[in-house]
Structure formats: C-alpha cells, structure tokens
C-alpha cells in the first residue's frame, strides 16, 4: 500500500504543467521531422497556459479521489503547495487510514498509521523537492538539465513525441507529448522509494481548465503490477493556505530531534 510517494510524483508530473490556455500556439506539422526536445517542452508550457500564468501562481490546493479498482480500495486526496518549497499531501484510503507526506524547511518526510514517520534522504529527497515545485515545468531547463528526443510513439492511439528528461539528481524520466495538441499523455519513470527503485507509468487524460489552467482531470498509474486512478475534482491557485498546513507532524519533529542528539 505504500505508494503515496509514487502517486505524488506522478500527479505532479501532470499538474505542474498548469498554465493559462493559449489556443494560438502553433502546432507542429504532422509530417515534419521530430522537433528538438526544447521546442516540445516549450510548446507544452504554452498550450497548457504559458509562462505568464506560471509566474503568477504562488499557491495551489488540489482535491481529488483515488481508486484502486482491482482491489476495491477508494479514498480521497488533498495537496497544498506554496512557493517556495512548501508542500503537503494527505491521502485517506478506506481501511488504510491517512498517509501524509510533505516538504517544509528543506525537510522531506512522510507519515502514516501503517508505517510511522520517516525522513527522506538522497535521491528520494531530491525527487520530493522536485515534486513540490508546483511550477517546475515553467523552468524545466533548471529542473531537467538534460533533455533528449527519443523519437515518436503512439499512446492510446495518438502519435506522440517521446522525450527523455534527466533531472540534476535522479534517474531519467520519459515523457510523451501528443503531436497534435502538444499535451503530455504519458510519463514513464523509475521512482526512488523506500521500497526500492520502482518502475511506474502514468497516463494523463481528460484535460480540462482549472481556472486559468489546462490540466488532466484523470491520471491512471501503473506501479508494480497494480493500477490506480486519480481523479482531480478541483484545483485552485493563489488561495491563502494556513501555515499549520505545512507544519511538521510531531512524529517527524521527534525524528529530527533524535537526529540532532
């Protein structure tokens, strides 16, 4: 059941593209050679909203549901982002209880009734910091210093450009952008986790506007032979978020205190 981090990672892979929809962005010609990865990513930013929209977003609150249909598990999820570098996520699954994770003051953590509290370190922490950056695609050149085109591939019947992005710290992530619309349709990556490196695949669908944002409302994840679906009900930008939402849980504070002793 310990997939909250993966779910976070993949949700952000789609949601962080939020921007103001600008329909005038030119499309690539269908029979043109594969464009440079930079052009594919910049186009993605533009079709989902554009740089200006990214720049004015300072907070974000996301509400949604999560369902593991094959095993009959359902729950709710909520995420809070605040620039710079604050993040909190809680997922509440029936029969499992609350699973939380967050980033505050450079401390990346997770906590649950099931497994208690822990601090993330190394590659996993770098991944958490990357995910907590709600506007990471607006400055993707910093987040992913290396971007390579890997040809084209059909995803759910739609021809897509395949781009491999390598973060400053972490493993390469492969993203698929629809040739026709420029929207991201799929992400494939190997997530660093306490359970080990785990291959995960994410399909983004049902893009719709959330205020000034064009983002997928349905994300289907495949992780370690299991599949689950995240449905985004609401996504609000620039709401004032109470400071206590980002406060470290007592269990995490206790771990930090032990580290100092």
């Amino acid at each position: 059941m310990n997939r909250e981090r993966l779910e976070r990672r993949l949700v952000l892979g789609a949601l962080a593209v939020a921007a103001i929809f600008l329909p005038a962005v030119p499309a690539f010609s269908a029979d043109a050679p594969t464009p440079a990865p930079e052009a594919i990513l910049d186009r993605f930013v533009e079709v989902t909203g554009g740089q200006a929209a990214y720049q004015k977003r300072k907070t974000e609150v996301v509400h949604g549901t999560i369902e593991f249909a094959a095993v009959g598990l359902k729950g709710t999820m909520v995420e809070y982002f605040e620039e710079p570098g604050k993040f909190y996520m809680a997922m509440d699954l029936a029969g499992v209880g609350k699973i939380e994770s967050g980033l505050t003051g450079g401390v990346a953590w997770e906590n649950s009734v099931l497994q208690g509290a822990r601090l993330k370190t190394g590659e996993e922490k770098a991944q958490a910091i990357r995910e907590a950056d709600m506007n990471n695609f607006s400055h993707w050149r910093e987040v992913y210093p290396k971007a390579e085109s890997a040809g084209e591939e059909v995803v759910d019947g739609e021809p897509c450009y395949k781009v491999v992005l390598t973060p400053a710290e972490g493993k390469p992530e492969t993203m698929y952008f629809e040739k026709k619309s420029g929207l991201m349709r799929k992400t494939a990556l190997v997530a660093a986790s306490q359970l080990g490196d785990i291959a995960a695949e994410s399909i983004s669908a049902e893009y719709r506007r959330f205020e000034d944002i064009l983002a997928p409302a349905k994300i289907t994840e495949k992780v370690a032979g299991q599949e689950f679906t995240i449905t985004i009900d609401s996504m609000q930008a620039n709401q004032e978020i109470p400071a206590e939402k980002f406060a470290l849980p007592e269990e995490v504070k206790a771990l930090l205190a032990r580290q100092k002793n």
Partner: protein
Amino acid sequence: MYRLLVLLAVPLWAQTPQDRQLNLDSFEKVWTTIRDKHWEKNPGGLDWQAIHAEFRPKVEQAKNIDEVRGLLKEMLSRLHQTHFGIFPATVYEEVGAAGDLDAVGDGSTGIDLRVLDGQAVVTRVDPGSPAERAGVKPGWAVKLANGVNLQAAASALAADASIPELISTRALLARIGGPVGGKVQITFLDGAGAEAKRELALAAPRGQMSSFGNLPETPVWFESKLIGAAGAGRIGSVGYVRFNYFLDLQRVMESFGGAVKACQDCAGMIVDLRGNPGGIGAMAMGMAGYFLDMPGLRLGTMYMRDAQLNFAVNPRFPSFAGPLAILLDACSASTSEILAGGLQDLHRARIFGTRSAAAALPSVIERLPNGDGFQYAVGNYVSEGGKPLEGEGVKPDVEIKLTRAALLAGRDAVVDAALSWIEKDGTGKAAK
C-alpha cells in the same frame, strides 16, 4: 466415516473421455498459470515450453486422475520451489464445501484446534463463546463432529505429508463451523478419556467485522495484557499481544502501538502469531518499527515478475528495546512469517513454537477442472538473512510443541518457554 473412506479410497474405475478431457484441461491450467504468473520469466530456470512438450503426452496417456495428479506433482517438483502443489479433490470433499475451504460459514463455537499426535485437540476456547459456556476445555480431543469421525480424519490428514498442516487444520476447523445460528454436535474426549457430548451453537465469530477493498468482511480481534511471574500491571511483567489477522489496519496498528507504549517498563514482550494467517503485508513493517531503533533496516525482499520490493522498516517511538519473543505454529502464515522471519534474521526476536506454514506469500489455491486443488505462489519472498520463506517457513529458535497433557493441565508450553527465556535469560537482544 464415509468421507474418510473417500479420502483413503483408490479409484477402481477407468476414466471416461470426459474425465480425460478434464484432466487435460487441468494440466493446461496448471502449466499456463505457472507460465503466466510465476515470478520468474523462466520459472525455476526451466524451459517451460519444453516442460509442456514433455508432460502433455504423458497426461494424454494417463489412465486415471491419480496418474494425472502424480504427473502434475512431478512437473511442479521440477521448479524445486515448494508451495506449488496439487491437492486431491477429496480434501475438499472432506470439508463438504464446494471448493473454498473457508466458505462454510462464519459461525463459530469459539474453539481453535490443532492436530496433536494425530488427534484434533482443542487448543484454545474463546472467552464468552458457546464452547466456554458449555464447559469445553483446552486439551479435549474432538472425536465426532455432526457424526463425522474427526479423530480418524485428523489421523489420516496428519499421515499425508503432501497436505500442509495449515490446510488440514482449516479442513478440520471447517467441520466444526457453519452458518451463524446453526448448531454442531460434538463428541469430545475429556482429560480422563471419557466421552463428553455437547451441542454447541454457532455464534458470530469473535472480533469486529472489518473490510478491506474487495476482501470479504473478516472478524478481527486484538488482545493485549500483562502476564508473567511479576504479576499483571506491575513493573517487570511481560507484555503479551495476540491478534488473529493483519487486517483492520488502523485499529490493529493503533492497538499494537498502544500495547508497546504501555509496556515500556516490561521485562519483555511476547507477540503470539500462532494461527495468524497473515493479511496486509505492510503491517509487518509497521509493527517491526516498534522493536528496531535504527533506520535503514528491512525485514526482507519480495520478488515479483514486475517489481522487487524491500520490506523496509521505519523506527517508531516509543519503541520497545527489551527481549522480544514471537510465537509461531504451522498455521502462522504470510505476514506472520514476514514479521517473525525478518526480526529473527535481524537478531531482534527469539522465535518459539513450531515451524511456520511456509506460505509467506498470498499464494492462490484454485480448483482445477478435474476437481483437484492447485496451489501456486505468485512471488518469492526472501527474508533479510537470505532465506526464502516461501516453502521454507520460519524455523523457531526454540522448538516447542503443544501437548495435550499440558493443555489439560491449563498450561501453554510455548508461552511458558517464552516467559522462562524472558524472565531468566532475556538479554534484550535475541541470541543467535
């Protein structure tokens, strides 16, 4: 008695064309399942297609279901991975169920039993249960249940080494279960060997009904208390925890954490996993965290076809650093084995009782077209010390078997051994 005769019977008739087809279908189901669901793409390092080519003609030539069963067992034995098995259809007939050993109803007399020296012996009577109210005592042997000779059935099941004790115990328990509201007539043999007849009501099972996803609602109970020579509630006592499933996650995890917190001054703790068939695997990691104060440790690794998962443990506070005893028996399976085996390998717990079920994974038991049962595992779990639990189980550090004589005397020899170790020899770290 007729069911026992069925159990021991040798087919005397030739198979019909229909039987032959059912046996071939059964072969294909077994072979295909291993091909598609085994955790290794080349199961057991074998050329699985070549195995098909070798065995299919033999199954086609087989004269009866016994020969087919023998061939399927031989094919599975090539994997050299136990926990793959074929059970005769008569195992199912023995419990009178259509196929699912658990599908006989939730009603319970409150009796738990095990096969001890070839007898079905009451090992525990739930407090407040119909059995307790009727005066049934641990140590009594079950002779007849609704007219079926369980004494003979227990002896026959125990004598068949191909049937895991977990399966045979479930089959026997099914005989004294049924729908809530029903009744079961049981003839016991008491401590003096005299017959004691009881009509026991089948009541709602002990515990709170708990659901988890698509799993059927399951009654889950959790108990914790202080025991030991120092006396309940006093410093120096031993904390004792027992629960019947790793389910009802939130309540059981919170109760477990509460029991550890309440036991900070205890001389030791006993986690009794006897009869616990497992549940949510991750709960083993969560519980182990209360006994380990170093980050970065893990109980073991699960290998599946699509992933490899470390069963990592987060230290949880307040933790318990004193001597820890874990009790196991042949009905301790899955998550119970993962928790016990991992803490044993990390030299954090000393294991008492008998070897566990060797069913560390949620293996699947399906009926084959010819009526036999087919058990297979979908992954491999290797405990931190490098032992594959699947098929091996957890071997206790101190092997102690329950005896009827001790049960009749009101003693639990396994708990007694753990208490003795904690109170006399416990050092806070389990000895190798």
